[in-house]
């Protein structure tokens, strides 16, 4: 009977000790977890800062070459104006001739699509395909990884000549264009590769940004290759995907007129 009482006391002590260790681990781990989350947040903010241009405008000529899995290709040339500070952009199609004058204008929370054929503006979504290519309208928007995502996993990987951190992101708001994103970020906080996934976890597209160009003190992508994983076909046992190559030419950080980011401008420029 005495032995039994001793056993119970021992059990109580052991349980108490275990609880103490757990509490210690919890209290020690929480700050570590919070610190890690904070670090991840800072990483995302650095990535946004590296991509966004907040003090002036960015204007450039984008050449978008789309090659579908059946082998046919098309080229679109567009003038792009971005003002990240006010979250505005204007994309004006220059080529092909049939689409010349079409424009995408982001003003406030709305993205307008202008059709010069019937001179009408219609709403479009940030998630819509740009000119039926693999590019989404959201790709022209200001980057906001820090505001729209949280890091749920990290890794490191050698990507060609780059040592990269791999960040697995999960959307925290409905504004995010994709619910899950994976980023490969080089030491200079530039995104070198990106994978976008659907809610079900299916890979939708892969974007590779092999080269950036320096414009004054800022880095602007020189070329991007986007592989659309939804548009594919099997040729001789091999999957061939739709591939879109975006070449950014003549980038400029010169400030442009406020009038550029208006519906009036789109209407005037096509007359």
């Amino acid at each position: 009977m005495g032995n039994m009482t001793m056993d119970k006391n021992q059990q109580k002590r052991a349980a108490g000790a275990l609880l103490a260790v757990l509490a210690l681990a919890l209290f020690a781990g929480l700050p570590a977890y919070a610190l890690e989350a904070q670090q991840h947040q800072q990483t995302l903010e650095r990535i946004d800062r590296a991509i966004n241009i907040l003090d002036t405008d960015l204007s450039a000529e984008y050449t978008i070459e789309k090659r579908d899995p059946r082998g046919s290709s098309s080229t679109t040339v567009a003038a792009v104006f971005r003002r990240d500070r006010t979250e505005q952009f204007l994309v004006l199609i220059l080529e092909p001739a049939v689409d010349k004058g079409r424009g995408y204008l982001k003003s406030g929370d709305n993205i307008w699509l202008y059709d010069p054929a019937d001179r009408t503006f219609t709403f479009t979504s940030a998630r819509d395909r740009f000119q039926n290519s693999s590019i989404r309208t959201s790709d022209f928007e200001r980057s906001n990884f820090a505001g729209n995502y949280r890091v749920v996993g990290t890794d490191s990987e050698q990507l060609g000549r780059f040592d990269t951190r791999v960040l697995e992101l999960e959307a925290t708001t409905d504004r995010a264009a994709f619910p899950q994103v994976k980023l490969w970020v080089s030491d200079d906080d530039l995104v070198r590769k990106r994978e976008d996934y659907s809610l079900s976890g299916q890979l939708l597209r892969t974007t590779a940004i092999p080269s950036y160009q320096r414009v004054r003190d800022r880095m602007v992508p020189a070329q991007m290759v986007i592989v659309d994983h939804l548009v594919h076909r099997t040729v001789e046992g091999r999957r061939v995907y739709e591939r879109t190559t975006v070449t950014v030419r003549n980038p400029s950080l010169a400030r442009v007129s406020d009038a550029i980011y208006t519906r009036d401008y789109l209407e005037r420029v096509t007359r």
Partner: protein
Amino acid sequence: MVAYLALRNLLLQRKRYALMAAAVLLGFALVTLLTASARGAMDTVQTKAARYFSGHVSITGFLEGRQQIEQPGPVVQQLVNSDLPYRTVAPRTVYYRQDSRLFFGGQSIRQRRLVGADFDLERQELGTLDFSAGGIDRMQGEEGEHGVLISEVAANLLGAQLGDDVQLFLTTDDGQPNTATLVVHGIFRETGIFGYVTYMRSADLKRLLQRPPDAATDIAVYVRPGTDIPAAAGAVRRRLDTDFRVFPPVLRRGEFSSVVDRSVEEETLAVVSVDAQLAEIRDLVDAFLMVSNFVVALFMIIVMFGILNTYRVLLHQRTREIGTMRALGMSRGGVKLVFLLEAAALAVIASLIGFLLGAVITFLVGLIDFGTGPAVAMFTERGRLQFTIRVQAVAVNLGLMVAAVLFAAWGPAHRASRLDPVEALRKNT
């Protein structure tokens, strides 16, 4: 006696009546063809539209801008326990946004509508789809999981065949993109506005949209053949009005936005008949019917004038016969009745033969394959015009034809009854 005389005279005078009979016969055959084809076309459109718009009567729920019925079970139960002339009542989940796409073989096609259906409940209704490959059986039970029925237009554009895995892209209510790999279990022939639709299991669609498993967007009510659909919609609405919040009646699709406030703070149901959805198409069919009725009316007027003139001649030729009848004691009314009965018998017999001729013509026209062009396909089933011959319509047409003939014969018959028997017997003709 008068009826016997009338029928005997009709037989004896058959050569004189032949032309009139032919006119009535052709007229009735034309009427039969026009009304049967217009009614058949409308029935075909209604059948297709009922599949597309969630039943002959569709019930849709709205709450704070969302289109959703959180608990469709009690609504379904309410209808099933009623004495409404329904055939099928089934909850559906319909994806109304226009951004869904099917991907296959390097191609993609935007779908106007994704319909998530319960294939066990809607077996009878969706079984009427014209499948060129596969069928609805494959969508039932566990085999139907992750299955999809696509239109032939979509299949041809994608190059997809039965058993192929296609990718479906859509966005959730929160705007997040989602995808699924679905197996093609059926390819159906459907073009026009009802063509760009994809049918899949309701459970699969709700999972993709991250909606509650019990929820639905619509409840499809299919009524029994011959039911007055707008009246049924009214009855459904009144029935639901006792236990649920229901919007005022929506009589035309164009009124929807003015009647239905999507932002209501308490779930409210909208009841819309397929006729309201098809108001524009119904207007088209009604216009066709109006034109055909005008043609028929014109034809009847010609027939009436023909009968009037023929009867005048006939009476002139049969003056002595009238005199004999009168001399033998037949009253003026009796003489008039004989001639009117002759005309009525002529109209009935010629109309019935005309009806049979019209039925044969509709059967033959029904054998012609008009193809699957978008304009034609809306009104045809499997490329062929469908004809609906309703007893009620035939009776009305017959009544009108007899009335027209009697109206035309009335004047000459009246004049015949006024003839003096002695004068009539003196006539040489």
